[in-house]
């Protein structure tokens, strides 16, 4: 039966992939015939979402085991693909290559962290969780650490980490919809919401699994296509992952040339002067704010008297005056940010492949510490994110769970080996063709993405040419704009948009399901109403899905932070809360309830404390002001887990040793987990 199912699935998905390729070819042909780009964008989004919806409807289910763990009969290969799609989110698809583009070697922390974490999953968790074989991660915590206290802490951390993560996905969807279909960002967000609900609402894990396999295929084709074409163009070898070393050398040569051009240095000096001016103004607050207001008023009045002054200038000045900070406190924040932005542009850029660059020995060692701690947090977080771990509940056996991790990582590597190549090729194109060209004749993509506020240019030295320092790219742009940057047909852009959408939707589905699973299964069914009927449990679960999804969309519409840092927070949260308790739960029989609960709370609290205090200076809606602090050892807020995880381990061990050992049934459970034989 297992084999027959596998064969049938392979047939379906082969046909599906073929169909998708035909769709791309057809659209490419239509584009040649003059189909407008906007229609191509619509076609891609419409067709792919229809496919997901169709799979979602076909896999609808009212069976609890099907709804939560897809009936535990997903073959290793397909579970690997589904995990890949579940895993590779908007952050991997959109954000990763862009971060690599902007920060070069430093960005590799994400590449290593998000793949090396699977070693921890494979060796420390997946087989044992499969042996345990329930529905959620809090289920495991409750069974191992006897009772609802551990379960509730687990639910809280699951919801928190997954929610931060899901907001980032929906934000990504909004971005794609607003650029490629021309919808307003907020409307795009709610469109994404509809796309997500269509897959997960009816069929739960079963529907999500089979849509995720479909989404994996689309996203990987979409990710590979532009960079392969670009590689063909630049090196005439269609294997970007293998040949980008050669391009990296060319980039290095271009960098050495561009970084020290006189105009480039001039532009950087001007940004430095601007930063200094802001610093001086901040120093003289509040007097400087009054002066600034006065200066603008005088400038406006002078222009009003002069009949020849262009109206546009007057309007611009008036807007500047209107947008002046309201009080000294606000001015300090706003000007501080402006100063920071100017400083970033004033800094001499680093060579792409240079590891831990910096002007001083301290800066270099801070870069190294941040690299290593971020890798650590991402790896531990990978091995603790509930939406990934539950995927290993869906395989038929422990053996399949082990194999499935191998497949997962192979499918994930397809993208992660390509991302660094993406960044290098994009950098080559931009340095070669965009930098130092005339601002009046810049390619169209700069204006198109500029409208969304993701690309900005400024001719600070007034020479009519675009210096590298004058170009600011949001990392999220690189992948989405690469086809345009490379001058590829629009159909490739549409394909990339469809891929990014698949990545964001698939992850959002998995996350939403995990959140609602934790709430409906763990809180409602296990704690509030254990006698609830199966049907009623699914009703609760589906209603919660709706509520959580809408809340996430509302958050995303606020455009909170860049995708990548939001996601990194989720990893630190999950890592600190779950990793110590899960690993010790399997490998240390002595770990007990008191220790686990205390350790999870302590690890989580430590992480949140550090994250909030380093990242935010004020949280107005909580009435908190002036809570910012200097980071410890220069570690950034994204790596907060590096403090939380050790605290979690230490507290579990110390508290467990101070309190009585767990009862015999728990020790028997641990014995059972350690042997695949039932």
């Amino acid at each position: 039966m297992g084999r027959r199912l596998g064969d049938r699935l392979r047939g379906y998905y082969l046909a599906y992939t073929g169909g998708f390729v035909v769709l791309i070819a057809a659209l490419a042909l239509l584009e040649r015939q003059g189909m407008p780009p906007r229609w191509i964008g619509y076609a891609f989004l419409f067709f792919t979402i229809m496919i997901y919806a169709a799979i979602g409807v076909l896999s609808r289910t009212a069976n609890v085991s099907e709804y939560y763990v897809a009936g535990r009969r997903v073959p290793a290969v397909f579970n690997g693909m589904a995990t890949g799609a579940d895993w590779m989110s908007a952050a991997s698809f959109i954000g990763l290559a862009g971060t690599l583009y902007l920060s070069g070697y430093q960005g590799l922390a994400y590449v290593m962290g998000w793949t090396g974490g699977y070693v921890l999953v494979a060796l420390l968790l997946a087989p044992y969780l499969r042996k345990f074989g329930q529905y959620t991660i809090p289920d495991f915590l409750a069974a191992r650490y006897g009772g609802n206290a551990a379960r509730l802490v687990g639910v809280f951390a699951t919801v928190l980490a997954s929610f931060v993560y899901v907001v980032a996905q929906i934000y990504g969807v909004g971005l794609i919809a607003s650029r490629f279909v021309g919808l307003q960002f907020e409307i795009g967000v709610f469109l994404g919401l509809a796309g997500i609900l269509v897959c997960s609402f009816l069929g739960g894990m079963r529907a999500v699994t089979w849509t995720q396999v479909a989404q994996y295929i689309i996203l990987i084709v979409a990710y590979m296509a532009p960079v392969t074409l670009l590689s063909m163009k630049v090196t005439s070898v269609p294997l970007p992952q293998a040949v980008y070393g050669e391009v990296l050398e060319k980039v290095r040569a271009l960098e050495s040339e561009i970084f020290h051009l006189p105009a480039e240095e001039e532009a950087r000096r001007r940004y430095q002067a601007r930063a200094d001016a802001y610093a001086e103004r901040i120093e003289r607050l509040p007097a400087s704010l009054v002066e600034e207001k006065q200066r603008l008023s005088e400038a406006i009045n002078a222009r009003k008297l002069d009949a020849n002054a262009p109206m546009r200038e007057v309007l611009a000045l008036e807007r500047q005056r209107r947008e002046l900070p309201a009080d000294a406190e606000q001015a300090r924040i706003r000007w501080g940010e402006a100063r920071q932005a100017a400083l970033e542009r004033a800094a001499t850029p680093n060579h792409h492949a240079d590891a831990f660059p910096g002007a001083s020995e301290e800066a270099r060692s801070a870069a190294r510490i941040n690299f290593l701690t971020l890798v650590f947090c991402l790896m531990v977080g990978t091995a603790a994110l509930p939406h990934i771990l539950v995927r290993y509940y869906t395989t038929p056996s422990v053996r399949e769970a082990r194999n499935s991790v191998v497949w997962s990582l192979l499918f994930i590597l397809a993208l992660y080996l390509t991302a660094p190549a993406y960044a290098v090729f994009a950098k080559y194109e931009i340095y070669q063709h965009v930098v130092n060209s005339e601002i009046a004749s810049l390619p169209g993509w700069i204006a198109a993405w500029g409208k969304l506020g993701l690309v900005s240019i400024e001719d600070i030295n007034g020479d009519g040419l675009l210096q590298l320092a004058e170009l600011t790219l949001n990392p999220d742009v690189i992948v989405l704009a690469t086809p345009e940057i490379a001058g590829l047909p629009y159909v490739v852009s549409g394909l990339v948009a469809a891929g990014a959408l698949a990545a964001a939707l698939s992850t959002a589905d998995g996350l939403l399901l995990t959140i609602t699973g934790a709430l409906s299964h763990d809180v409602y069914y296990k704690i509030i109403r254990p006698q609830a009927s199966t049907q009623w449990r699914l009703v609760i679960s589906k209603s919660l899905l709706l509520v959580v999804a809408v809340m996430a969309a509302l958050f995303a519409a606020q455009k909170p932070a860049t995708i990548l840092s939001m996601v990194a927070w989720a990893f630190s949260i999950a890592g600190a809360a779950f990793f110590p308790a899960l690993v010790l739960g399997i490998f240390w029989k002595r770990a007990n309830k008191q220790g686990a609960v205390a350790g999870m709370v302590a690890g989580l609290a430590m992480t949140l404390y550090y994250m909030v205090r380093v990242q935010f200076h004020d949280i107005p809606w909580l009435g908190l002001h002036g809570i910012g602090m200097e980071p410890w050892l220069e570690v950034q807020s994204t790596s907060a887990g590096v403090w939380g995880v050790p605290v979690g381990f230490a507290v579990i061990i110390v508290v467990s040793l101070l309190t009585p050992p767990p009862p015999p049934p728990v020790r028997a459970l641990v014995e059972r987990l350690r042997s695949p034989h039932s």
Partner: protein
Amino acid sequence: MESTRKRLAYWHRNLAVTAALLCIWFVVTFVASFYARELNAVVIFGFPLGFYMGAQGALLVYVAIIWFYARYMNRLDREYGVQDEEEE
């Protein structure tokens, strides 16, 4: 009694292979990254070695580790007769 001893031996071999593989993982990840600047002095096919390790080398080692673990453990299960019956 026999089964307890056997179970313990199985578990110890599992721990041994897990520990060994985690050591490799640690070296490839943290030791190699720590010395990335020094490794970058070596350039192969245009790739500075430190950069290459982060971008591809470490990743390939990770797959190798997981693949080896799955193969080793699946064999160990059979050797000790603890493999779970495939359902269905």
